[in-house]
């Protein structure tokens, strides 16, 4: 018998110092497309992502950002290899993501497993 693994809810997390409670899908998309690089408080946003082929990254890009992962790769490649900007920092696992976001002021990331006692701010995604 094949048991399908359930799709877990995606949690968008920020460093605890980011004092916002919710974010719109459009704003999240702007941040991950590197069209917004500062929070309203002027703190620089440090964007963390999982590798492009990671299942959680694919789900986040497609279902939360409403962007196909290959398109995000293109945006980041263009920034990286044209000098226009800085692409997100890649982390290899959810544990690393939690550690990076919790320790970097202004950071944003995503996980589908929050059963950790890590000091991060969890954002509601508001329509």
């Amino acid at each position, binding site marked *: 018998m094949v048991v399908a693994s359930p799709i877990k809810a995606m949690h968008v997390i920020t460093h605890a110092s980011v004092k916002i409670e919710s974010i*719109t899908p*459009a*704003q999240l998309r*702007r941040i991950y*497309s590197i*069209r*917004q*690089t*500062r929070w*309203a408080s002027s703190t*620089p946003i*440090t964007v963390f992502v999982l*590798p*492009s*082929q990671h299942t959680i990254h694919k789900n986040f890009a497609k279902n939360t950002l*409403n962007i*196909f992962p*290959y*398109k995000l790769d*293109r945006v980041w*490649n*263009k920034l*990286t*290899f*044209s*000098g*226009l*900007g*800085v*692409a997100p*920092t890649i982390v290899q696992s959810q544990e690393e993501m939690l550690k990076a976001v919790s320790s*970097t002021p202004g950071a944003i990331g995503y996980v589908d497993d929050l059963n950790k006692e890590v000091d991060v701010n969890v954002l509601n995604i508001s329509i």
Partner: protein
Amino acid sequence: MLMFLIFQYNVNYMIRIRYAFAFVAMLFIGQVNGQESNNEAWQVHGFVAQGLIDVDGSSFVNNDGALSAELTEIGINGSYQLNDYVRITGQAVYLDGGNRYVEGARIDYALLDFGVFQDDKWLVNLYLGRFKNNNWLYSSTRDVPHARPSIILPQSKYFDGFRDIAMGSDGISAKVVYSSENYGDFDFYFSYGSSSLETEDVKLLLGDLVKGKGKQRFDAQASLYWQPLFSPWQLGVSLLDSDFYYERANSDLYADGLFSFQQLSSSFLYEGEKWEFSGEITQSKFTQNGFYFEEYSRGTTGLGAYVQSRFQYNNQLSLLARVEKFYADEKDKNGSQLEKNTGGAVPSYFGYQNDITVGSSFMLADNMRVDIEHHWVEGTSRLTPVISPNKELNNQRRWSMWAVQFMYWF
């Protein structure tokens, strides 16, 4: 003699492959260190690509028509955030494309990036130094193998002979990004600067017999791209104005010359889950005064366009098909006037170049890919040198090529 040539070819080929492999090994080491050192302030990235290309019937890559390994692209870049508002960044590349452009290393970009203004809708950056051309669909990544749609880009727009002039300039550029919750994303780019040209660049453009110096006086470009909110479509328009002059040497066959170039182009891009469509149409006005002799004056308006489609078969494999047309003079689409005006010195097929391309990309790993493609080409107007065409080496209207390229990036 034949054995000697084969031996020599193999030796050169092996040296090239050996260098490429040595560089890959170096980049692997660099990547390990890079991943450890990449952080919020400091980033290092790069790529290496080596391929084989075989052209049958033209001097696009080499003069003897032999299978060639002159398909090498290596690059490394670094970015350092000096403070919250200023970043310094640069990229060096080594390129070998045979006759397509001058072989060697160059600084692709080296600039200071100033974050001038930002709120939740606007993002304004100013760049000072050597910047890349960001105004066309693939102009900023045309020499980044994994970030372009094919090994050889559409020559109507991304003519390799103009690579070093079109790639970027030394000067100032700006990016203005506006994100509307109702209308979507708008990107505006502007740049003003000039490129310095080495002797080899001038020969590639004007012919082997030139002895003087060439310089770009200025290059001004602007573009606007619009993507409706959450839409797979993107539309763009771009403008270019540039002057280039030739200063003759004392013992030169040629006179001083001034070449002016204006370009208007528009583009579309559709990015779906499985299918992607894109295309660009470009009208280019080219004016030449002098060079052949002092009173010489000629103006033409060229027209080029391509449409292409990519199908993502699965996570690893994608397929590409492209159709492209280019006329050096839109009023002389079959080149008959060109042949007549030059008294038969330049055959009519130098007046146009049409290309049908099929290709495929296969992902070997997250950061390794191999591309393969075949081109069927009619016409020779996008070959180097541009101003003094080589009809002895290009005596056929139809020619073809295939290429395969392995690429790795980090």
